[in-house]
């Protein structure tokens, strides 16, 4: 027994690459909403990040991913980055998920001089404060609104629009951008309704909107409120030319599966498997096989963010300042398409990401805009409830 054990140990030691060739593992922080109301989306981010760590390992980059849960709360996110930056001495931090948490963490990242790579939060201001240490991979709020409005204006001639959105950082920044754009494009805003998320009853709000008879209804909400809003829209018989969903809750597998109420709803998204971005389809298949769930865009965003941060940090030898420079200079291509952090129109370190628009057709999200990604023809106008 003993000689065999010794033999096994010897083989194991010899099969390791020589120490000199193997750099010390890169330490990355990861802040995410693993518990709390946003946890179902947070799970996608965690899974995406885990896949990225595996892929980095295959490329010879050892990453230690230090995961911190913010529970969807700003104060937890703030203590998480303080611990990661000062205690754990990470090279960079990926996260947090929500706009509210990211907004709280961004100034601290700048203060501690640790690069922060935001994978999926939309609030405009996150990359508009001239912070050299804050990078964002996904498209910000105005792109959500612009993509959706461009898509429907290419399909028909709506004249009026109503906004319904949850009163959170994410909800109000996407709808504010939407309102400005709508006015620019000559649409009349007939309703502007912010709501407290998690309420069981939106019927009165929706009846009020129905009374205005808008051509477009633009909704922004996290997770399950999207399903509630659409269920109750059906109940009160709200029937615009198109329902526009601003990502998040309108872009989940659960929403897709509710076909009575999701059918023909438009949603904007950061990612779909069928965009033709390198590795996007393979990523979706691999994710599905591993976690037995369909990946949402959050998973792809976190995956791409951890890959980018890992490569940048490895190239910089794990030094936060050099990692920052590597992020600012580098360019990557992957499941989210081309990635480069640029400064433009008041943004700093913002990736110019193109957002596809999908339409749910019989329980399946089909990419319908822009033309280069479109796989199906969009149905417009909305023919009414079944």
């Amino acid at each position, binding site marked *: 027994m003993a000689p065999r054990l010794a033999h096994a140990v010897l083989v194991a030691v010899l099969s390791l690459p020589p120490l000199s060739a193997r750099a010390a593992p890169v330490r990355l922080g990861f802040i995410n909403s693993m518990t709390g109301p946003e946890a179902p989306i947070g799970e996608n981010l965690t899974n995406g990040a885990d896949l990225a760590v595996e892929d980095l390992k295959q490329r010879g980059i050892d990453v230690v991913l230090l995961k911190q849960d913010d529970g969807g709360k700003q104060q937890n996110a703030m203590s998480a980055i303080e611990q990661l930056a000062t205690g754990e001495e990470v090279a960079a931090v990926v996260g947090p998920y929500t706009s509210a948490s990211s907004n709280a963490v961004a100034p601290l990242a700048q203060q501690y001089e640790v690069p922060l790579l935001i994978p999926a939060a939309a609030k405009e201001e996150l990359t508009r404060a001239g912070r050299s240490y804050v990078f964002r991979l996904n498209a910000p709020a105005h792109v959500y609104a612009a993509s959706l409005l461009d898509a429907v204006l290419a399909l028909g001639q709506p004249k009026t629009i109503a906004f319904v959105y949850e009163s959170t950082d994410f909800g109000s920044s996407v709808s504010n951008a939407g309102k400005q754009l709508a006015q620019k494009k000559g649409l009349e805003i007939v309703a502007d309704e912010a709501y407290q998320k998690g309420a069981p009853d939106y019927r*009165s709000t929706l009846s009020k909107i129905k009374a205005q008879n808008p051509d477009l209804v633009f909704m922004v909400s996290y997770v*399950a409120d999207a399903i509630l809003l659409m269920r109750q829209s059906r109940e009160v018989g709200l029937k615009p030319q198109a329902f526009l969903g601003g990502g998040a809750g309108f872009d989940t597998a659960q929403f897709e599966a509710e076909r009575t109420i999701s059918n023909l709803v438009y949603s904007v998204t950061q990612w779909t498997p069928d965009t033709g971005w390198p590795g996007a389809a393979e990523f979706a298949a691999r994710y599905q096989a591993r976690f037995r769930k369909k990946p949402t865009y959050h998973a792809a965003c976190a995956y791409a963010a951890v890959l980018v941060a890992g490569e940048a940090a490895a190239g910089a030898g794990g030094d936060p300042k050099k990692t920052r420079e590597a992020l600012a200079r580098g360019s990557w291509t992957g499941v989210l398409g081309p990635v480069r952090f640029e400064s433009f129109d008041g943004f700093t370190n913002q990736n110019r990401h193109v957002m596809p628009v999908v339409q749910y057709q019989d329980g399946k999200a089909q990419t319908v805009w822009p033309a280069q990604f479109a796989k199906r023809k969009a149905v417009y106008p909305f023919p009414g409830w079944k």
Partner: protein
Amino acid sequence: MILLLQAILSGVLVGGVYALIGIGLTLIFGVMRVINFAHGELVMLGMYVTWLLFVKLGWDPYLSILAVAPLLFVWGAVLQTTVVNRVLDALPQNQILLTIGLGLVMSNAVMLAATSDYRLVSTSYSSASFDLGGLSVSYPLLLSFLVTVAVTVALYLFLLRTDTGQAIRATAQDRLAAQLMGIDVRRMSVLAFGLGAALAGVAGALVAPTYYIYPQVGAAFTLKAFVIVVLGGMGSVVGATLAGVLIGVTESLAAVYVASGLKELVVYVLFLVLLLVKPSGLLGKTRA
């Protein structure tokens, strides 16, 4: 005009379910003078039982009330005898801490067992409605409201007509006097907590087809139930019924005529004003 009627209708229907949650809480408070801050979690348990029966056995959510009510009754009775009973004479803050703790244990245990995923009970009628003179009436809400009315009427009859019901009311009125009259107040406490839990569970089952379910869903209901109980007058079952409907209608009207984002604000401002004018609540008796 249609809009006003629609708002009032939705408000009354939603308020009915709020009332049911409030009645359970007020019953527990009336008999034991303990504010059950885990009440929302009992609603949450009712929702999860409904969801489980729906997913595993294909039970209709309204049918599952038959299972949810007894299950939650037993659970409530167990909680009362094993934990809550020990703090009946303790300081109020200790009672509050205990029930908050119970709530945390329940929501986190459910999270451990069922993960934090949002669950939906999507029935064929989850978004169905019919037209009533231009008003859209939600099927599931109307059904829930009718069940609420039936349960509330049954509860009134029980409390007013049966010996046990009278004993519960006597205990609520004056625990010591009731004891001197030969009423087993400990049994009444167990009964009241069980009934309160069962009502919360039934409310959970009624909400399930139109709402979504996750482990922390209870917190919102606890707050609402607490407001209903205080507004209606601590311990008053009729008051809680009125207050539930009143809050439902106020929310609904505020969403239409003020702003959707401010409906809670309107509710709480009215709540404060009412407490200033009538500190004992709508139907509460001022206690010396």
